């Protein structure tokens, strides 16, 4: 009998309760040195909860975590870090007012640098880290002035800079575009070579197959199985996750429609510059571009969330330029924002009140809210979108990331818009539900809604859109037919300067 060394990190009978509910139930896992281990499961399956217990953010109700075979009691993140367990949480946790360098080294005890703050040294070291990720970020500005992708890169750099024995990444690529993802994978592979244990949570299965050595599937808080990636295919994983076989991922394309509904005429903002495009009834327009290319800003200008510095926005003959968000929403133009926590949700409020927010015109009488209608609406949407929650009264900060995203979607869908602007709508959503959202988008389009979708996943745009508009550095570099476009042709446009 050969004595194998104990796994780098393992769990024994790990369970976690929130109140009366057990969200992780008797999970025993083993993570070995020098491997990348994917943790998979539907939204709300308990992946992030496991990750939090491994890194000391929360403590298990039962069971234990073992490092190199010996039990480990982590009462906070600091103790986890001291043991070499470093986690990148699912939700962005940066200090918005601090600089890139300060965020990267925040909370790190660096020998010889524990008392004095030396910004120059800090910036130099930070830049070295970002170089590994192939990122050039402005070092001086507070991170809140960076785009969502850039912020994710900062958070990644923060996780990578701490000599991790165990590195846990909870959906690091949810908002990354392909090129950033590739850079990240290169770094992760080299860490694997050096013997680091990597635990990787993601809903992008292609990535998992490209990167991981082993995969664990969780369902309803329980461990389903752990297998080597080489023995698996995507359908197996999906059916293990959702407990049944997956139907068709993408719906069929539009057949009819096409009347122009919303028209942007030479709009400009901070990054967006002189963009003109048209959304058509019954059609889905995908919007592609690199990080920071101004995709989000374009939608924000169309929806009134940000004032256009130039240009006009027309809804039919109706000039919306200068109208408030509320006025545009009443006119039927609705934006589902990119960042669910900072822009979408009132985190301490319930699912029901988050859905009601923005729908009061139909959920009240003479200014008095109707709790029964609010509840009925919320219940219906929770069922429709399969939001996994104990009740519609549960606070959204107790939901898993993907389910929070669904609550945001639910609010805006209930407005029954005629123009729907979606910014990264499937960020953090599991494959099963993604398919449903794609079908939902198509159903809305078929009912006559004009849809725009911003996404960092080009395959997603190819699958769901009729046409794809591509932005580079705020300018439109082309609008192509999705049926004939390929990933390569879109990527090409993403990098190409507009020929004006």
């Amino acid at each position, binding site marked *: 009998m050969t004595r194998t060394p104990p796994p780098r990190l393992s769990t024994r009978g790990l369970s976690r309760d929130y*109140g009366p509910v057990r969200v992780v139930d008797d999970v025993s896992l083993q993570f070995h040195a020098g491997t990348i281990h994917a943790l998979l499961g539907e939204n709300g399956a308990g992946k992030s909860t496991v990750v939090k217990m491994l890194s000391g953010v929360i*403590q298990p109700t039962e069971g234990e975590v073992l490092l190199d075979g010996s039990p480990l009691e982590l009462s906070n993140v600091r103790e986890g870090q001291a043991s070499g367990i470093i986690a990148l949480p699912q939700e962005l946790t940066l200090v918005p007012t601090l600089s890139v360098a300060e965020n990267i080294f925040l909370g790190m005890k660096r020998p010889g640098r524990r008392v004095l703050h030396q910004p120059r040294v800090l910036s130099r070291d930070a830049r070295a880290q970002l170089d590994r990720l192939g990122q050039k970020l402005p070092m001086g500005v507070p991170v809140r002035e960076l785009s969502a992708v850039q912020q994710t890169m900062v958070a990644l750099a923060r996780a990578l800079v701490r000599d991790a024995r165990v590195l846990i990444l909870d959906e690091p690529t949810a908002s990354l575009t392909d090129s950033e993802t590739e850079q990240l994978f290169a770094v992760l592979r080299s860490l694997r070579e050096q013997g680091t244990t990597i635990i990787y949570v993601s809903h992008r299965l292609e990535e998992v197959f490209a990167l991981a050595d082993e995969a664990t599937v969780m369902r309803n808080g329980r461990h389903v199985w752990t297998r080597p990636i080489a023995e698996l295919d995507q359908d197996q994983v999906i059916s293990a996750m959702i407990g049944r076989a997956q139907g068709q991922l993408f719906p069929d394309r539009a057949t009819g429609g096409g009347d122009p509904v919303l028209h942007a005429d030479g709009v400009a903002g901070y990054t967006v510059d002189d963009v003109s495009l048209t959304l058509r009834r019954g059609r889905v327009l995908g919007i592609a571009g690199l990080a920071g290319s101004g995709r989000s800003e374009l939608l924000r200008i169309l929806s009134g*969330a940000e004032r256009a510095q130039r240009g006009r926005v027309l809804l039919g003959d109706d000039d919306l330029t200068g109208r*408030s*968000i*509320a006025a545009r*929403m*009443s006119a039927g133009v609705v*934006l589902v*924002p990119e960042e669910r926590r*900072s*822009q*979408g*949700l*009132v*985190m*301490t*409020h*319930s699912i*029901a*009140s988050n859905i*009601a*927010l*923005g729908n*009061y015109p139909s959920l*009240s009488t003479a*200014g*008095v*809210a109707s*709790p029964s209608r*609010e*509840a009925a609406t*919320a219940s219906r949407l929770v069922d429709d979108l399969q939001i996994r929650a*104990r*009740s*519609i*009264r*549960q*606070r959204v900060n107790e939901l898993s990331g993907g389910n929070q995203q669904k609550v945001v979607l639910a*609010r805006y869908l209930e407005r029954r818009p005629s123009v729907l602007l979606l910014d990264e709508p499937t960020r953090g959503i599991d494959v099963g539900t993604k398919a449903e959202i794609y079908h939902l988008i198509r159903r809305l389009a078929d009912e006559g809604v004009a849809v725009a979708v911003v996404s960092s996943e080009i395959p997603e745009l190819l699958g769901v859109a009729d046409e794809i508009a591509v932005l580079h550095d705020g300018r439109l570099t082309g609008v192509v037919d999705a049926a004939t476009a390929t990933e390569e042709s879109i990527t090409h446009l993403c990098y190409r300067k507009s020929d004006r």
Partner: protein
Amino acid sequence: MISHLARPGLGLARLAPYGTLLGFLGLIVLFSVLKPAVFLTPLNFTNVLEQIAILAMVSAVQTVVMVVGDFDLSVGALASLVGVIVAQLLVQGMSPVPAVLLALLVGLLAGAVNGFLVAYLGLSAFIATLATMTSFTGLALLLSNGATVFGLPDGFVWLGQGRLGPLPMPVVVAALVVAAVWFLLSATVLGRSWYAVGGNAEAARLSGVNTRLVRFSAFLVSGLGSGLAGVVLTARLASGHPTAGDPLMLSSIAAVFLGITLSRAGQPLVAGTLVGLGIVGVLNNGLNIMQVNSYVQQILTGVIIVLAVSLSRLSRRRR
């Protein structure tokens, strides 16, 4: 689990279990045991209610401002100012009803100024209301010439000293104000918008809420309520004093903060504010009744408040 906002009701169900409420009950038990013959009488009960009635009006409207995530430091000075104004009008022979209405209008206008500065000019509520507080105090002193304005008609004084059945009038008015604020906060779209703006202003804005108007309206309510409190205070004292309302500022914010310790969402609730008021009122009354030395009474007040609030920490689940 219980909804935070979707269900109206006095909101007791939304309170965290135990917590500061325990502290409040503890205080009642303490004084009941120590001085049963005095503390536990209907008369003393009415006294306590009467003593906190005016503070209750201000705390109720302060609750609204704090729901949207701001403070109103000018409430006390405004109550003083409006009190002086109504007294001046009455002394100059105006009859009570128009005098009161005019004074309330001043309160509303003052609230509009605060609201404009905070919601539309974007000043921080602290600076804006500290500045208006200073100006209101100056105005009150100027209008009253720094002195007590007295000689008010009985019809008016009844508002502060009369009774409706067994209840002192200030208690009746306070009950109406609290009920109105409770209704606004828990049953109306405006109330939910206040909570949404306080919870996440950007999310509210992107949901089509006119966040500026919503914040503005909170200060309007605060101005009106503070003005009313000033009117009742003047009636209760049968005279207008240019600084009579000033202590209301810190106490009202304290009552709301005490109440927040009872809220699961970390946002103020009318029910929580009532408990906060109860603590302030019972503590003061009880220590007076115990005949504690005035200075020691101050020391104890601080200590007991800390103890009462710390109880809410015992019932807190670990993070």
